[in-house]
């Protein structure tokens, strides 16, 4: 049995407000093993980024977090901020969608890398600089020495994202969280970054939680996937299981709704309606108003996640295919 780095159980994140409370995350369970690349897929508002922030202990006020997040054996939820602060970078590091916004425009890339590395690893600046150069080499930045001297505006988006990955790697985290790291990049550069992350995971045994809305990206990168909808994980399994035999109607229809190269000129399957507003999510299964297979039961009771013997889990009363758990008779 592989060692698990991240164990999330029944995570909820809510933002109380005067008029309405936003339920960003509504009971998420995920576990990620060491050396695994796990994809967390969802649309805007599905709660995927808030899940990531919770792992870092960075849910902004007035957000309330409950449940359990065990990262490399240590509990994050409820830990004092000073403790979580020391864990950031070391236990889990994060790279963001827009590397231009993640770096300070007033300081050189080198200064920012060295500061972060020295601070997280508690080493002196010359050792941190060596670590930065080594990491920039590992992420295939053409001229690492020169890159250290540049300001963020002087390099391209692709190079900046490599620098961010280098900063994260040099801190030697147990888990790398990548939140849509290729969305802002051009197609050819996106492919370079995906291949880089895949190679790093293979060669260094890096554990990655890769957050995206792009099914194609996870298909070419991830070992396992969790699909989020309206703050819950609706389906979880290996990439082959989910793409080969999706069991949740949301996953299945999403796969048919997205244009895929090689399919030719075809009409796309439409998913009616829109993503729900999380201050007032639909009762029962949140996908039922858009689901072709929905029955009255779906509006009444929220389906729980059931896994088959191969670890393919789905939270649906009427999953596609018989190999998955049978519909719950009366769980209401």
């Amino acid at each position: 049995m592989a060692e698990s780095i991240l164990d999330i159980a029944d995570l909820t994140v809510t933002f109380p407000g005067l008029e309405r409370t936003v339920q960003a995350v509504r009971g998420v369970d995920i576990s990620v093993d060491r050396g695994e690349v796990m994809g967390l897929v969802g649309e805007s508002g599905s709660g995927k980024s808030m899940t990531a922030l919770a792992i870092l202990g960075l849910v902004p006020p007035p957000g309330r977090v409950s449940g359990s997040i065990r990262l490399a054996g240590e509990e994050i939820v409820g830990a004092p901020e000073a403790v979580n602060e020391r864990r950031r970078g070391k236990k889990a590091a994060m790279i963001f969608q827009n590397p231009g916004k993640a770096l300070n425009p007033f300081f050189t890339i080198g200064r920012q890398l060295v500061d972060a590395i020295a601070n997280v690893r508690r080493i002196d600046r010359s050792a941190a600089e060596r670590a930065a150069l080594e990491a920039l080499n590992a992420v295939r930045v053409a001229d690492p020495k020169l890159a250290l001297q540049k300001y963020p505006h002087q390099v391209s988006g692709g190079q900046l994202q490599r620098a961010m990955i280098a900063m994260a790697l040099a801190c030697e985290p147990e888990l790398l969280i990548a939140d849509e790291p290729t969305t802002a990049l051009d197609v050819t550069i996106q492919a370079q970054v995906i291949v880089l992350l895949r190679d790093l995971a293979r060669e260094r045994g890096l554990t990655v939680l890769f957050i995206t809305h792009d099914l194609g990206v996870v298909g070419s990168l991830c070992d396992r996937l969790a699909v989020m909808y309206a703050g819950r994980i609706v389906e979880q399994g290996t990439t082959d299981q989910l793409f080969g035999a999706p069991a949740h109607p949301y996953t299945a229809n999403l796969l048919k709704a997205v244009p895929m190269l090689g399919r030719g000129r075809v009409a796309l399957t439409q998913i009616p309606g829109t993503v729900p507003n999380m201050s007032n999510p639909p009762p029962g299964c949140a996908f039922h108003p858009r689901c072709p297979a929905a029955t009255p039961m779906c509006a009444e009771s929220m389906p729980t996640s059931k896994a088959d013997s191969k670890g393919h889990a789905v939270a649906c009363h009427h999953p596609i295919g018989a190999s998955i758990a049978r519909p719950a008779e009366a769980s209401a």
Partner: protein
Amino acid sequence: MTALLSVDGLSKRFRTRHGTVKAVDGVSFDVARGETVALVGESGCGKTTVALSLLRLIEPDGGVVQFEGAELAGSGGQAWRQRLSIVFQNPYSSLDPRMRIRDIVGEPLVTAYGLSGKALSERVARHMSEVGLGPEHMKRFPHEFSGGQRQRIAIARAIALEPQLLILDEPTAALDVSVQAQVLNLLQDLQKRLGLSYLFISHNLATVESVADKVLIMYLGRVVEAGPVSEVFARPRHPYTQALLDSVPSIDPSHRGRLKPVTGELPSTLNPPPGCAFAPRCARATSECRASPPPLVAIGDGRAHACLHPLE
């Protein structure tokens, strides 16, 4: 038969403090009636400058743009608006948040025909129903709608003057994945019903394949390959087209190892390479490629490429 839109040698340079940028450098193509032509490329390749030049929202430096074989008089104005219109990428910024939907969709009709009162309302209702929105939405403001609905509103406004050609600038890139198919299917449906032609601007090859008849691949202001989508994607001739296709992540797990990204990055538009702009990233490049940019040559079957050492 003359093409609906014919563009010949379109060029646009921007003078900046740091030098001159050739944003669009001699781009030529035709769009037939009822046809979808896709303009594909990465950031800085000039695809949006082509769109804005066609609309006369910026004044091109050179080139001839003809509708049905005739040049339109003047630059911009109503003659243009009644021929072609545009749907922008982001319906969160392209709709005025202080205007009601009736006024957003009706504004072109007021400007062009001076419509008002009942005539205006009826016409607005007609265009809204064409995009699947009901008359009850007329009095609402943009913030009351989801991204997909806003894009429908933007489309209703774009078709209000009954143009023959719509420019679609990444019309689904800002939308949620589950909503993109609704908008793409609506556009296909409108095209059939209204006989529209589309110039579809995108960097997403999979989307292009699912909607377009013809494709133009642009790199740093020039067209490097053109032809029917099915042909170009199945048998690319220009190495850049191949590089783009190899960069598309696949949903098919058996393709996982196949992502073969081209090395290097886009060159600066301020200081482009002297020859073929793709030569610095191209495995097939020779000294000839670096000497002068290869011209776009037709190779039959409606295909053309600008490469001295094309793929077989």
